[in-house]
C-alpha cells in the first residue's frame, strides 16, 4: 500500500494503518532497533512502542515520508530504552559508530553554546554537499548504526572502501564545522 493511503488510514483512525505499517516498515523498524538494542525481546517491545507512538502522532502530524518518520521514532525509542537500561549488561551496537564521531564533534565542555539543532542543521547541510556514496555510507553508519560489513554488502563495496569513505567523511565534517566557526 502506498504511504499516502496508509497515512489516510491513520487520519480516519482505522487500525488497518498499524497492520499496513507493520507489513511495509516492520522489518526496517526491527533493523533500526536491532542495531541499537541487543535482545530480540527488547526489539519487539520497542517496535510495539513505535506503533503506539505513530498512532498517537498521526494525526495531527502528516509525515512527508512515512519511512523516515517511522525510522526516526524507532531510533528515538530504542535510544531511550537503551539509556534506561544502561547498566552496561546489554550490547549497544550504536556505541562504536558514535565513538568514531565523538572526536570530530565539538566538546560541550568547551562549546556549550552550540545548540543541538544548530549542529544538526550544519551536519545536514554538510551531508547534502557530499557525493551520494559518501552521504549514504555516513547516514547508514551514524544514523542507522549499520556495521561496516552490512554497509559494504548493501552497496556492493569492499569493507576497506566503506572504512575509507567514513574516515574521509569524518575529516571533511571536522573541517566543515571549523569553517562554520565551530572548532573542536
Amino acid at each position: 500500500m502506498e504511504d499516502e493511503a496508509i497515512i489516510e488510514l491513520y487520519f480516519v483512525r482505522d487500525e488497518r494503518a498499524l497492520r499496513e505499517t507493520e507489513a511495509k516498515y516492520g522489518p526496517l523498524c526491527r533493523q533500526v532497533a536491532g542495531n541499537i538494542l541487543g535482545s530480540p525481546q527488547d526489539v519487539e517491545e520497542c517496535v510495539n512502542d513505535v506503533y503506539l507512538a505513530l498512532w498517537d502522532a498521526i494525526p495531527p502530524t502528516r509525515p512527508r515520508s512515512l519511512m523516515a518518520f517511522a525510522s526516526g521514532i524507532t531510533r528515538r525509542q530504542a535510544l531511550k530504552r537503551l539509556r534506561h537500561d544502561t547498566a552496561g549488561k546489554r550490547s549497544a551496537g550504536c556505541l562504536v559508530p558514535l565513538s568514531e564521531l565523538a572526536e570530530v564533534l565539538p566538546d560541550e565542555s568547551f562549546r556549550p553554546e552550540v545548540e543541538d539543532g544548530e549542529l544538526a542543521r550544519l551536519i545536514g547541510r554538510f551531508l547534502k554537499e557530499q557525493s551520494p556514496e559518501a552521504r549514504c555510507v555516513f547516514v547508514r553508519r551514524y544514523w542507522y548504526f549499520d556495521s561496516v560489513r552490512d554497509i559494504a554488502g548493501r552497496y556492493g563495496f569492499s569493507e576497506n572502501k566503506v572504512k575509507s569513505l567514513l574516515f574521509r567523511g569524518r575529516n571533511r565534517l571536522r573541517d566543515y564545522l571549523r569553517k562554520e566557526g565551530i572548532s573542536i
Partner: protein
Amino acid sequence: MNIPRIADVLGLIDEDLLDAELPKRRRGRTVRFLLAAACVCLVLGTITALAAGAGTTLLAKFRKGEDGGFESGYDMAAQLTPFPEEALTGDIREVPALIRRQIEEATPWSNQLPNVYIREFDTSAKAIEYVGLEELRPIRWDVEETGTTLSVFGGKRGEIASVSIMTYCRRGEVRLQSQAWLRTEKGGADAALGVRTTEDVDYTEESFTAAGGFTCHVIRSTALESGNVTYDGYIVRAGILYTLHAAYPPSAEAQADGLLHTWADQFEPETR
C-alpha cells in the same frame, strides 16, 4: 562530545537524508506515472491519427545508464473519450468536496498530493460501484485479487479530471496489475502514460486481435534482475484505457500469455 548527545544531534538531521539510496541498489520495480497532459499535447496532436486501431501508440522507448544505475522505459499515447463528470453516478460524487478539503488543509511538508484522492477497496467490483460509470465494466476472470486502489485526480476546485482503478492480483507465479483509467471533460481526450523501470531492460512491441475484433497492444520487457520478465497490455474500449501489467518467471510464460488473452477477450465490441 559525549555519545548520548551525539546520538541526539544526529537524530535531528533532515529526514530527507534518510530516504537517500545509491542508484545501484535500487530495486527493479516498475513505476508508472502519468505525464502532465500539457507537456505532451503538442506531441499527441500529431500522433493521434496514428492511434486509431489499437487506441494506443508507442511514442518512444529508451535505455540509459548513469552513475552505475540504469533507467529504461517508454512513453505511450492514448486517445480516450472524455466523460461528463455527471456520468460518474456513484459515491465518487463526494470526492470533489474531499479534494477541496485536502487542498485547503495541505501543508508544504505533506507527502500527499492535495488534488489526488486515494482510497483502498477490498475488490475491484466495489471500486467500480463507487465510481458508478455505466461504461466501466468489471473483469471476470479466475485470479486472486489482493487489493484495489482508486485514485481520483482533481482540479483546483476539486472537479474530477481523471480516475484510475488499479487492482493487484496474482495467479500462480504470475503477478498482475489491472488498471482502468478514464478521463472527464476536465481532463481531456489526449493522454500519455510513462512506464519506467530502474534497470537496463529493452522493450518490444507487438499486438493481437482480441475476441471482440479490436487490437490489444502489448509491450514486453527483457528480464529484470529478479529473473522475471514483464508485459503490459493496452486496450481502449468505450473511451476507457485498460492496462494489464504482468511480471512472471520465463517458465510461466504460457500461463501469463493465457491470462493476457483471457483479459483481452473480456471486452465486448465497441458500442459507445
